[in-house]
Each structure stands twice: as structure tokens, then as C-alpha cells.
């Protein structure tokens, strides 16, 4: 029997949306208040969904302790209480939540092999959430 397990985490970070490839006017028009040079912050909610066969012996898709440990070490400790624009992956790429979703997906895919990675979902605010299921065409804003 195949099941999908989702675990939620929380982290807080600041960012500024700005692209050096646009003029000041274009940045203001594209990003509005998010272009404030001092940045602004969010309490992000991260959902990681993995899937796999439910183990007959343990009743689990994967061991939650291992999943929590990996996410804690490789994702939360990297992004929590940080300014995303100061991180090397966002030196050139704009730290939109779309791009952050993709980064986290790639971290998970590279390092967590206990179950199949289905989806990374991020809530930027109560009103905006983003999901990435792997593959550029799948990034979507809801």
C-alpha cells in the first residue's frame, strides 16, 4: 500500500525582491512594496510530502525522526533567522518563494533517500502558497 506523508515545519526569514536585470522603475512596478531596499520578513510554513510503500514491520512510509533530522539540519538551520538575499544561492536569483521552493526541493532530493520526494509546499503568508513537485514547468503559485 502506497501512502503520502506530509510534515510541516516553520522558519522565519527576511528577503527583498529585486532584480539587477531590471531598471529601478521596472523593479518598483514588478515587486511593489516587496522591493523595499531594507527588506521585509515572513514566518514561512514548509510542508514536505514524501511517498512510499507502508512498511509491514513498522507501519511507516519513512521514519519521522530521520525526516525531521534531515530537514532540521539541511533546511531549517540554513534558512531560519536568515536574510535570504545574503545566501549564496540568492546572490543572483531573486529569493521569491517560488525560487525558495525549488531550492528546498533540490536540497531534499539530493540528500534524503528514505522515501520518494513528492512535493515541497511553502506558505509565505496566510494568503499565498507555492508548491513544487520537481521539473521547471511544475512550479506554481496558488
Amino acid at each position: 500500500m502506497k501512502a503520502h506523508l506530509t510534515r510541516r515545519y516553520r522558519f522565519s526569514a527576511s528577503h527583498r525582491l529585486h532584480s539587477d536585470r531590471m531598471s529601478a522603475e521596472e523593479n518598483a512596478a514588478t515587486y511593489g512594496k516587496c522591493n523595499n531596499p531594507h527588506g521585509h520578513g515572513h514566518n514561512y510554513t514548509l510542508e514536505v510530502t514524501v511517498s512510499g510503500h507502508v512498511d509491514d514491520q513498522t507501519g511507516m512510509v519513512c521514519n519521522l525522526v530521520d525526516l525531521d533530522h534531515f530537514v532540521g539540519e539541511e533546511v531549517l538551520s540554513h534558512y531560519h533567522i536568515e536574510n535570504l538575499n545574503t545566501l549564496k544561492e540568492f546572490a543572483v536569483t531573486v529569493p521569491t518563494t517560488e525560487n525558495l521552493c525549488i531550492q528546498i526541493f533540490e536540497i531534499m532530493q539530493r540528500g534524503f533517500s528514505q522515501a520518494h520526494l513528492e512535493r515541497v509546499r511553502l506558505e509565505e503568508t496566510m494568503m499565498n502558497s507555492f508548491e513544487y513537485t520537481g521539473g521547471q514547468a511544475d512550479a506554481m503559485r496558488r
Partner: protein
Amino acid sequence: MVYLTRKAEFAASHYYHNPDFSPEENQRLFGKCNNPNGHGHNYTLEVTVKGEVDSRSGFVVDLKQLKEVMNREVLDAMDHRFLNKEVPEFLTKIPTTENIAIAVWQRLQPKLQQARLHRVRVYETPDLFVDFYGEE
């Protein structure tokens, strides 16, 4: 195709233990969840059915019927129970969130008349849930 989701809550206790493992292995795998006295959760259950909208009633499914089936087949059996001791599936299977989702699906699917079962979602806590789509 329209999808309809009905939520319900139930409170239950459980513990994680495999009698084929040694006590040390049970402890290592399940930690505090291995305490044989059990611990509890307020589970949230979401049952999603799918179907076409009936042209006369405007319904995908009669919600009264769906609610009745959920109460009779799932909530009466699991609400305010010690899952490992009182629910037949969990006398031999560990009542992990995964196995609860599967058990709920297997209880509901044969009893739904109008719409088809699409997904069972079980929240063990607000930060942990399992989806089962009926995949073998």
C-alpha cells in the same frame, strides 16, 4: 469531476510496538511512542469523494449519507478508543497514521454508494498528516 471533502475529528490513544522486534529495537525505532500505556491525539479526518454533479439535486453526494457512513464505519469504532486494544485492524497492525488512513479507506470504500472515494487524509497532529489514494 467535482471533489467534495468532509471533515471529522476523533480522539484516540495508541502506541507503536512490533512484537516481532526485540524491546531494544522497539525502543530505538519508536522512542517514546513505544510506551505500552499509550498516548493520545485529537485526529482530524478528511474524506474526499469525487463524482459528477447530479442534475436534479445539485449534489456530488448526499452529505447526510456520507456523514452517516463515516460515523458508523469509522468514528463509532475509533473515537475515544485505545486503538491497539479496541479496533480489530490494530490488534495485528501498528496504528501509525499511515495504517489508520488505509484502514479508514478500507472501511469506507465498499459502503459509499453515490460518489467514488478519492482520498483519505488523517492528521495525527496539525503538523503531520498522511494521504491515502487507494494505491496498492
